C-alpha cells in the first residue's frame, strides 16, 4: 500500500498546486494550501509505517502549524477585505511599487 499512498499523496499535492496557481479567490487559494499540507501528511503517515512513529509526530506538528497559519492568514484576508471590499487576488496589490 506504500506505493499507492505515495501516488495518492502526489496527486493530491498536484491538485493543490493547480488550485493555487489557477484560482483567483484568496480563500480558495488558502484552502488549496491546506490540501497540499494534507497530501504531505499522507506521505508522512505512509512512510511512518515503515520507519517508526516519528512521521506521526511530524504530522501533529504540521497540523499545529496549519492551524496557526489558517488563523493568521484569514485575519490578513479579513483585514485586506476591509480596505478593498474584495478577496480577488487581482485586486490585492498592496505591495506593488
Amino acid at each position, binding site marked *: *500500500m*506504500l*506505493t*499507492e*499512498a505515495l501516488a*495518492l499523496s502526489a*496527486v*493530491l499535492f498536484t*491538485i*493543490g498546486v*493547480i*488550485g493555487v496557481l*489557477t*484560482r483567483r*479567490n484568496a*480563500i*480558495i487559494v*488558502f*484552502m*488549496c494550501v*491546506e*490540501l497540499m499540507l*494534507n497530501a504531505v*501528511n*499522507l506521505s508522512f*503517515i*505512509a512512510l*511512518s*509505517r*515503515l*520507519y*517508526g*512513529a*516519528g512521521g*506521526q*509526530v511530524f*504530522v*501533529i*506538528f504540521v*497540523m*499545529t*502549524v*496549519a*492551524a*496557526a*497559519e*489558517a*488563523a*493568521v492568514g*484569514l*485575519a*490578513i*484576508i*479579513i*483585514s485586506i*477585505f*476591509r480596505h478593498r471590499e474584495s*478577496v480577488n487576488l487581482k485586486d490585492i496589490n498592496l505591495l506593488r511599487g
Partner: protein
Amino acid sequence: MSNDFLPLLYSFHFYLFGLIAIAASIAFVTRKSPVAAALWLVVVMFCLAALYVMMDAQFVGVMQVLVYAGAIMVVFVFVVMLLNLGEAAPLADVRSKWGRLLAGFLGLALVAEIMALTRSPLDPRLVVPQLPVTVNSTGGIIGGVAGPLFREYLLAFELTSVLLLVAITGAVVLGRKRSAN
C-alpha cells in the same frame, strides 16, 4: 516487500477512499462558491482520516477529523460567511436523483459493513494486514505517538506552544478594527 499479501477487503477500501479523495479534491478546485469548495475539502479530509486509520495511525486519524475537518475548516467557512462571499445558489452539488441515491447507498453500505465486521467471528488477520514494522508495540495507539512526542521532540513541542501564542496574538491584532488615530 511490504505488500506481499493484502486482504482484498483492505485493498478495496484503500482504493475506494483514495478515489473518493481524488474526485472530491478535483470537485474542490473546480467549485465557484467558496462554501461548496470548503465542503468538498472536508470530504477529502474525512477520506484521508480513513486512510490514516487504515495505515495504523489511528490517533492522527482522530486528530485529522477533530482539528482539520472540525476546527480549521469551520474557521474557513466562518470567514466566508463573515465576508458574505457565499453564493446564493444551493450549496449541494449532488442534486440529481441518481447522485443522491448513489451517495445514500454508499453511506448505508459503509455503515452496514462496520456493523457486520464488528460482529463477525472472522479472524482479524483476514481483515487487517499485518504490520511490516510493529510501530505501536508498546503503549498502545496513543503511547506510540506520545513517546517520541514527549521525548525526542520535546523542545519542538514546547516551541509549538510559543508558535500558537504568537499566531493567536497576531490574528487578534490583524483582525481588530483600526482605532481612529
